[in-house]
C-alpha cells in the first residue's frame, strides 16, 4: 500500500517537476520575447521621433514657400476671392435660368452608353 502511495508520489514529483521545468522554460522564452519587443518598441519610438523631426524640418514654411514659388503658380488668397452665402442666394435665380435654357447633360452616362 505504502509502496503504491510512494510510487504515485514519485510519479507526481516527476510529472510536476517536468511541468514546472516546461513552464519555467516557457516563461524565460516569453521574458526574452518581452525584452526584445520592448527594445524594438524603443527603437521604433526613436525612429518615429527622428522621422517626426525630419518631417517637421521638411515641411517648414520657408521650404514650402521656396518650392511653391518654384513649381506652382499660387498666391495667397485675397479678399475678392471670398463670397458670402447671402450674395450667392441672390444669384441662384440667375444660374437656374441659365440651366433651364440648356437641357441637362450627362457626361458620364453618355460615356457608359458608348462603352456598352
Amino acid at each position: 500500500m505504502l509502496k503504491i502511495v510512494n510510487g504515485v508520489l514519485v510519479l507526481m514529483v516527476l510529472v510536476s517537476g517536468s511541468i514546472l521545468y516546461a513552464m519555467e522554460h516557457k516563461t524565460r522564452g516569453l521574458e526574452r520575447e518581452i525584452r526584445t519587443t520592448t527594445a524594438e518598441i524603443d527603437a521604433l519610438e526613436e525612429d518615429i521621433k527622428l522621422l517626426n523631426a525630419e518631417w517637421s524640418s521638411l515641411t517648414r514654411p520657408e521650404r514650402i514657400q521656396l518650392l511653391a514659388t518654384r513649381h506652382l503658380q499660387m498666391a495667397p488668397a485675397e479678399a475678392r476671392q471670398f463670397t458670402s452665402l447671402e450674395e450667392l442666394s441672390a444669384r441662384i435665380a440667375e444660374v437656374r435660368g441659365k440651366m433651364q435654357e440648356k437641357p441637362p447633360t450627362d457626361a458620364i452616362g453618355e460615356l457608359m452608353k458608348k462603352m456598352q
Partner: protein
Amino acid sequence: MTDTHLPNATAKLPGQHRIRLLGLGFSGVFLAIALKLAFTSVIAPLSEEAKTIAEAVQRIPRPDIVDRNGNVLATDVAVASLYADPRKILDLEEAVELITGVLPDVDAKELDKKFRQPGRAFVWLKRQVSPEERDAVFDLGIPGVAYVNERKRVYPQGRLAAHTVGYVDVDTKGIAGIERYLDTEGAMYTASLIEPERGNTAPAELALDIRVQHALTDEVQQAITKFKAIGGGGIVLNIETGEIVALVSLPDFNPNAEDKNIGKDQQNRMLSGVYELGSVVKAVTFAMAFDNGTITMNSKYDARYALVIGNARINDFHAQRRVLTVPEIFTNSSNIGTAKMALDVGIEKHQAFLEKVGLLDKLLTEVPETARPILPKKWGRLVSATAAFGHGFAVQPLQGLAVVAGILNGGKMAQPTFLKRSKEEADVLAKDIVKAKTSQYMRELFRLNALEGSAGKADVIGYRVGGKTGTAEKVVRGRYSKDHRLASFIGAFPMDKPQYAILIMLDEPKPLPETYGFATSGWNAVPTAGKVIARIAPLLGIEPVLTAADREKIAKLAKAKTKI
C-alpha cells in the same frame, strides 16, 4: 510485503515525537510559502500602476515643443556616437582605411596616430552621427568598434521662432526662451505634462502658429533688406486670449548651431529690448482721456502754436497750425494736441493710468528674457506732456501691443502668453483697463486712421484694418537724432470686432527714392504690416467683408493691371 522494512510499525520508535514535530514545522513553513505565493500571484498581483510608476521614474524624457497645430519645434533624438578600443582591433591600418572610407570627414592620419598610442583603450571615432553613418560603420564588422546612444535636442524648424523656443546646453538644460521656462519657472507645468501610465511626456503646446510666424518673419526680413534697417521685429497677438501667435526679432540665430554667436544684435527686440515707441503711445493717452471723460469725439484742441512748458517747446511733425478735433489730432498725430489732452487729465491720473495698464512695470511672460521699462525719475508737467506722445519712457514692444490690444478688446486686457490657452482661461486672468464705450471710440479712431490717416498703406481690402503709426527718434550719444529713427506700427483687424493685434517695428530704416526721401513709419513699417495682414488674415480665418467702395477699388486695380 508491506511491513518488511518496519517489522513493528505500530510500536513506538524512539524520537517519533521529534519527527512529528519536525514534520509539522516543515508543513507549516511550506504552507506559509504556498499561501504567500498564491497571494502575490493569484489573489492580489502587483497592480499595473505600481509597475509603470517604477518604470517612469527611471527615465522622464524632456517634453517636445510643438506649435498650436502640432508642428514640432523642438524634440529629442537619439544620436549614436562611435568609439573604438584599439587594443581589440586586429589590423589597425585596415581599420583606419575602412572607417575613413565610410566617414570621409574623419582625418585618417590623426585616427591612425590615436590608434597607435600605447595603452589607449578608448578613441572617439565621431560623435553624434546619423543613423545611416552608424549602420555603415557597424556593418564594417571591425571588432572593438562600438557606439553609445546619446540624446540630442534638435530644432527642426531652424531659425523660425528661435527667440521664442530658445535653446539648451550640452546637458539638455534650458538656457533661453521656452526651453529655459520648462526647467525653471515652468517646472510645475513641465511636471504636469508627464504621463506616468505611458512613461512618456506630452509635448508643450505653444500659442505660436508657424505659418503666421513664417509670413511675419519673411515680410519683416524683406522690409529690413529694402529699407537697409539694422534690425526689426513684429508680433501677432490674439486679442481675446492674449496668445502670442507669432513673434519675430531680426537678426535672429540658428539654435541648431554649435556656436550660436548671440550678440547684442541678436537679442530679442520684442521682449528684452525697451524702446520709446513714439506716437503709437498716443493711443493710450486718447483712451485715458476718453475714460476720464475729459474729451469726447467732438472736443477740440488748439494746435496753432507750439506748447511751451518751462523752457521746452513741443511741436508737431506734420504741423497743421489750426484748431484740431479729437479725430484730427489722432490722424495727424499731433503732439501738441495729445500733450494738452494728458495735461487736462492731470499728472497723478496720467501716472495712475499708466500704472493700471502695466506700462510702468516689467511685463512677465513665459520667456524669461524680459526687460524692465525705462521711466522718467520724476513726473512733472513736462514729463507728463512728453509721455503722452511716447517720449521719455521706454517699454518692451510686446507691452505696448498688449495694452493697445486691451483697449481695443472692449477694455479687457488679456495677459500675453506664449502657451496655448482658451478664451475661458484667459478671461480669468484678464483685467479691465477702460470702459467698453472708450474701446468703441478707440476702434473708430484706429479704423479712421487706416482709412484717411497715416496707416493707410496697411489697409488690406476686405479685412478692416485699423492702426496707429509711430516714428521715434533714437537717442544717440545722449541726444535725439534726426537720422536714427525707430519706425513702428500697431494695428488690429478686423476693426468691427478686433481679433488680432499686430506690431511691426523697424530699427533705423533709411529713406529711399520710392519713399520720396521719407523714412517715417507710414512709408516702411505700415506697408510691411499691410503685406503681413494680407498673408495671415486668410490663414487666421478672418472673414473678409467687401463694401461698395472696396469693390470699386478692386475693379480699378484690375483695370490698371490689364493696361500694363
